[in-house]
């Protein structure tokens, strides 16, 4: 009688070990670039969402310079295009499945609009598949990270900004030296969670042919008709990637909490 897991199968898939190593490397690279793109995008989006740019602001006051009582002009004067765009982007990306976004980027943007050069990096990373995957995942995580960063920035007491500005710091210096260091400390658990989610979610890119860990599982299954044992290997690899990541961030979290309660 067959048992659920057969040790013999592990030795049968052992020759394909290299695929798993390469898959792991691809997953790590994919996650790394996704996080990088996502974080930069999120900072930009959060800045846009929190911006106070009202190009139609002049419509809100009457000829004597007093604020209007209401009406269309007052509503128009409160229109903030940067914030509107960022909010629209975030809501759109959060309300559609990742796989749809990945397909649209791969088949739509890079399939029809932009043609990517075909080459491989390190001999196993196919650029023309890897790049759209990174872009799609980065755009997706940017939306989530934006909301995390925005809430973090808004959680900092307004008195901090007042103190910084009263000392003559610009809004940029205030953000860089006062608000962001405190905000990032507060949102580190949420960011850690998002990083781990990215590592796991990157598995979806195997559907567009990125040769990550899941693709290794599929390749082994195709060659040997063994399915459970490769999946267990994949499980172990994903766990070994995600668990230390969250632990590492927990360590930084403790280190950054100097100056809190003691």
């Amino acid at each position: 009688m067959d048992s659920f897991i057969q040790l013999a199968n592990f030795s049968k898939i052992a020759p394909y070990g290299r695929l798993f190593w390469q898959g792991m490397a691809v997953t790590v690279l994919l996650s790394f670039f996704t996080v990088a793109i996502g974080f930069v995008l999120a900072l930009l989006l959060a800045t846009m969402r929190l911006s106070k740019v009202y190009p139609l602001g002049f419509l809100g006051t009457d000829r004597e310079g007093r604020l209007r009582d209401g009406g269309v002009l007052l509503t128009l004067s409160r229109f903030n295009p940067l914030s509107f765009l960022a909010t629209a982007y975030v809501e759109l990306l959060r309300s559609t499945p990742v796989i749809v976004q990945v397909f649209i980027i791969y088949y739509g943007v890079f399939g029809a609009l932009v043609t990517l050069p075909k080459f491989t990096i390190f001999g196993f990373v196919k650029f023309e598949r890897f790049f759209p995957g990174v872009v799609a995942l980065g755009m997706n995580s940017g939306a989530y990270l934006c909301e995390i960063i925005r809430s973090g920035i808004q959680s900092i007491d307004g008195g901090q900004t007042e103190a910084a500005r009263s000392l003559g710091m610009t809004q940029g210096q205030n953000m860089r030296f006062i608000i962001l260091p405190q905000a990032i400390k507060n949102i580190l658990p949420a960011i850690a969670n998002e990083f781990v989610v990215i590592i796991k979610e990157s598995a979806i890119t195997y559907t567009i042919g990125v040769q990550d860990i899941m693709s290794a599982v599929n390749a082994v299954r195709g060659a040997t008709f063994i399915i459970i044992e490769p999946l267990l290997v994949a499980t172990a690899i994903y766990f070994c990637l995600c668990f230390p990541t969250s632990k590492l961030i927990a360590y930084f979290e403790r280190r950054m909490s100097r100056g809190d309660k003691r």
Partner: protein
Amino acid sequence: MATNDKLIEVTDLKKYYNKGAIKALDGITADFYRGDVAVIIGPSGSGKSTFLRSLNLMEEPTGGSILFDGVDITKKKVRDASGRMVRLDIDKHRQKMGMVFQHFNLFPHKTILENMTLAPIQVKKIDRAAAEEKAIALLRRVGLEYRASAYPIQLSGGQKQRVAIVRALMMEPEVMLFDEPTSALDPEMVGEVLDVMRELAREGMTMIVVTHEMGFAREVGNRVLFMADGRLLEENEPRELFDHPRHPRLQDFLSKVL
């Protein structure tokens, strides 16, 4: 110490909320001279904090003008020395106006020394060693030199406020704005903060102080301004104002607080 050298000239300053339904400041006109220790008193909701916070544009006024060193800082654009219209650099002006807050607003993620040296290094581009030396000297003056490497959370309220004062002094401001500096303190810590402020006044620092400490107003101030309902109702030298209040609102207020 008061001089005839006008530092701040406020004309018809207004701050409206809800389209004018709430008039936090309803046309304030007041001048402040170098060396002045002007104390602003008044019942809560009288607009005294709003007025103080308008002076360095922490609150954007709805109308009126504030001339600081002859420059109208409420304008977005000003004429420079060569007569061209340039964007007003409010950060430059804020450097010259130190501000001390009711809730201290120290930066919790920075040590006391870093709290003090951050703005001089980043804004004034003073080198770190010089900034730190200066910070230590100022800390010594307020008796907190030994706390330089502590974090704000480790300090008592009175210590935090003394640090906040010297942090503002690091920028070498021309005027210090105090927004109820002792209101959030335990009673036994009020004295140590007032002592520092008294010392500062003695050295000739121009100060504008919003406070409920009538003793301080009487003893240290050279002018007292009484505000109510967003208006400046009475202004006089302290003894005259406290002993012979003229406006009925002031008489009523003093009868409650003295």
